[in-house]
C-alpha cells in the first residue's frame, strides 16, 4: 500500500529511521556503573571504593549513591555541629564515624584493635589506604549522590559533608533513573 508522493514517503521513512535509532540508543548498554553504598562498615566501604576506582579506570561513568549508614563516609572530620538538631541526632552525630577512615570493621573489630591490625597488615602489603582510595575516586570523576532522606534523618548539614555544595542530594527515583540506565548496579 503506497500512498502519497515520493517525497512524503521519504519523509515518513526518515522519521521512522530516526525513532528506531533513538530506540536502539536507549537499548544499547551504557558504560555506567552505579553503586549503592548502604553499609557504613569500613571493609564494605573499602570494597565499594575499590570497585568504583577500578570501574573509573576502565573508562566507566560511575555513580555512587550513599544511603543510611554509609552517609557517615561523607562526613568531614571535626565539622560536626549540633545547631538546630534534635538531641538524638546530635547523639548519633557524636557516635557515627566522620569519614571512611573512622568506620568500623564488620568483623573482628575488637574495639578498634582488629582494625588497627588490619590497617597495619594492609600497609605492609602495599594496599591502598581507604582515605587515599576515596580521594582517588573523587579525582577520577565519580558522581556522588546523597540520599536526602538519610541525611535528613541524621540531621546532616551541607557544611558537615565533604564537597557538600556539589553533592547531589536526591531521592530513590533519581537513583533508580541512573540504575536503570546502568550496566552494573551493586548494593554494598
Amino acid at each position, binding site marked *: 500500500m503506497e500512498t502519497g508522493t515520493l517525497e512524503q514517503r521519504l519523509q515518513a521513512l526518515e522519521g521512522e529511521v530516526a525513532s528506531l535509532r533513538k530506540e536502539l540508543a536507549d537499548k544499547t548498554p551504557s558504560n555506567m556503573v552505579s553503586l549503592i553504598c548502604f553499609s557504613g562498615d569500613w571493609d564494605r566501604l573499602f570494597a565499594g571504593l575499590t570497585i568504583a576506582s*577500578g570501574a573509573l*579506570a*576502565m*573508562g566507566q561513568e560511575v555513580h555512587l549513591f550513599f544511603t543510611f549508614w554509609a552517609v557517615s563516609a561523607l562526613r568531614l572530620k571535626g565539622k560536626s555541629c549540633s545547631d538546630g538538631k534534635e538531641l538524638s541526632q546530635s547523639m548519633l552525630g557524636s557516635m557515627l564515624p566522620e569519614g571512611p577512615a573512622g568506620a568500623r570493621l564488620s568483623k573482628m573489630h575488637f574495639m578498634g584493635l582488629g582494625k588497627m591490625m588490619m590497617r597495619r597488615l594492609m600497609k605492609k*602489603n602495599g*594496599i591502598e589506604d581507604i582515605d587515599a582510595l576515596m580521594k582517588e575516586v573523587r579525582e*577520577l570523576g565519580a558522581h556522588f549522590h546523597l540520599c536526602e532522606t538519610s541525611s535528613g534523618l541524621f540531621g546532616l548539614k551541607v557544611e558537615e559533608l565533604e564537597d557538600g555544595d556539589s553533592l547531589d542530594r536526591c531521592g530513590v527515583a533519581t537513583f533508580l533513573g541512573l540504575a536503570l540506565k546502568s550496566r552494573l548496579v551493586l548494593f554494598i
Partner: protein
Amino acid sequence: MPERIELNCRGMKCPRPIIEIAKAARRSSSGTELLVASDDLAFESDVKAWCETTKATLVALERDGAAVVATIRLA
C-alpha cells in the same frame, strides 16, 4: 615512532596499577605505548581485562624477574 611511557608499578596492589594506567592513558593520545611493570599477581589478568574494555591493544606481556611487563597501545 609513537610516544612511549614507562610506568613502574612494582610494589603496588590492585587497584593501583590499573588506576595508574588509566591516568597515563588520560594524559596520552591514541597510539601511545605504555610499558607497565607490576609484581601484583592480579596484574596479568587485570591488564588483559583493562585492554579489552578500553579497546586498547595488548602488544606484549613479558616476565621480568618477579614482575610482568605489559606493552599497551592505546586505542
